[in-house]
């Protein structure tokens, strides 16, 4: 592995990446997980992330970008601190997924893949998230919220708002 002298990641993440590059039969296998963990820390896959991950895995930046552009959860622009992902696929649609999406657009004042001016929330309409029997379902970052109504959705958003210092 190429030696990384100055990492853009926290020491904990850098150490995790050192380990991740060594556990697979082929180093490149660590690419998708690394991109996700990098995004978790930096907020998106920035140019600097691409450069460092390419270096860590002995890949061309082009190889990294080629993979990056394929996966829908990876983004190259920042999102809100809390990314609200509303599922509107069939099971959720039948139980009010689109109404929930419209409610979120209205209450947050933003559209698909937009971010509130304070940077707190972004909104995304997503495909099936695997919570069909507990529909309609929403993911905020990685947290699942099931069996929602517009009123319950407001309460969910409030719990994230309440985490912020006033």
């Amino acid at each position, binding site marked *: 592995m190429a030696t990384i002298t100055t990492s853009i990641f926290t020491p904990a993440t850098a150490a995790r990446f050192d380990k991740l590059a060594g556990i697979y039969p082929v180093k490149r*296998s660590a690419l998708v997980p690394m991109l996700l963990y990098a995004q978790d820390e930096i907020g998106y896959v920035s140019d600097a992330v691409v450069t460092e991950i390419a270096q860590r895995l002995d890949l061309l930046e082009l190889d990294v970008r080629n993979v990056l552009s394929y996966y829908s*959860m990876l983004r190259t622009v920042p999102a809100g601190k809390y990314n609200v992902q509303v599922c509107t696929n*069939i099971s959720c649609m*039948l139980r009010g997924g*689109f109404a929930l999406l419209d409610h979120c657009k209205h209450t947050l004042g933003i559209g698909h893949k937009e971010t509130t001016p304070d940077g707190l929330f972004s909104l995304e309409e997503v*495909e099936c998230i695997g919570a069909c029997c507990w*529909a309609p379902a929403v993911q905020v970052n990685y947290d699942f919220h099931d069996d929602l109504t517009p009123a319950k959705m407001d309460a969910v958003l409030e719990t994230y708002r309440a985490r912020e210092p006033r």
Partner: protein
Amino acid sequence: MPTLVSHPDEVKVLSRRFGQGAANIDKYLELDGYKATQKAIAEGPEWIINTMKASGLRGRGGAGFPTGMKWSFVPKVSEKPKYILVNGDESEPGTCKDHIIFLEDPHSIIEGTIIAGLAVGSKMGFIYLRGEYRYLLNIMEKAVADAYAKGFLGKNIFGNDGVDFDIITQTGAGAYEVGEESALMESLEGKRGIPRIRPPFPAVVGLYGGPTVINNAETIANAPHILLMGGEAYAKIGTERNGGTRLFGISGHVERPGVYELPMGYSLRKAIYDVAGGIKGGKQLKAVVPGGASCPILRADEIDIGLDFDQLAKAGSMLGSGGIVVLDETVSIVEFALRTIRFYQHESCGWCIPCREGTDWIKKTLTRFHAGGGTRKDIDNVQYIAENMMGRTFCPLGDAAAMPTLGFVKKFRSEFEEYLAGARPANPLIQIQPVGEPEHAGAH
């Protein structure tokens, strides 16, 4: 958090530890945990494969291929290492069964992976979850770490010299296509999830070029139960050539949606009206998608059928991933068809032209049709395009998009014609896009 449901008709084999805190390794051990693995080590590969064959277990991802046979295809001697790959990239709309196994019984997946490894002579397994399942990855990682700490994974497992097995867990990053076995291998190798042509099949040339067994998470979680109860006993629960039970996720317009473990061959009518409590709000049933979004729709008069691979195939549909999506009388099939094809158009990886162009063309046609700009020829065109996608792609995604589309236009052609004549649903589920407006700017 998913809610656990229960019904007296359930036969709890796979789900028998659900709700009992079995993610904790000590609790799991109290509930017969890791006994099957030790038995497998003692009895050897031939016994494992014979037991799996006798069980009649068929792949729970959707294809329904006999698991014991799949394991027996792996060459005994191989220059390259052999691998076990557990497919937990659960992405078929209507399907959330693996979700609940990862949550409630992660060790059963670890055990199944080791057992598959013992059966085919592999020393390394991968458990791949979809990217959205991060909290479930955390649960799996904890379970794997606990198993290592007890000596159930690593070198000389359970104190048996020379019996080694390692497990790596990871997630994807959002891609339906990666649930297809060859695209899954590509993703695990750090590439775009694009399918490989077969042959060679993964059992001969798979992950990193080595022989690879790829099983759905539910399939693999069944293995320890089968080894403990015996193949014949498991087979007896189901119907002919459809051994055992299945986790059915019933969603949509029912009173009690949830994941229920029912014997193979259980009546679809009873699953909807008894197990899931009937149609929500006392409405009438219009149609059912019996096994996830890719399975052709069944009309309300076609539900007197047993839920197994062969009976559903005979009825012109599929058992698929066991995700039963129920539509009440108010649903517009035009809207439902549009939402379904939007999904497949979004998820087509673009590798094969019939899928890439076909899904896009159908989506555009149905979008215009839905907005009121349709013609009679559109209905025929949609059918024509779908028929020409069938069987013409590397992987089954093209078929998965074409099959439900054909079901909608063939079984509910009159609804498309009425829509054309101006009929509109009383409760529209999707907003109508004015003709000429930019394309839908959502996920799809």
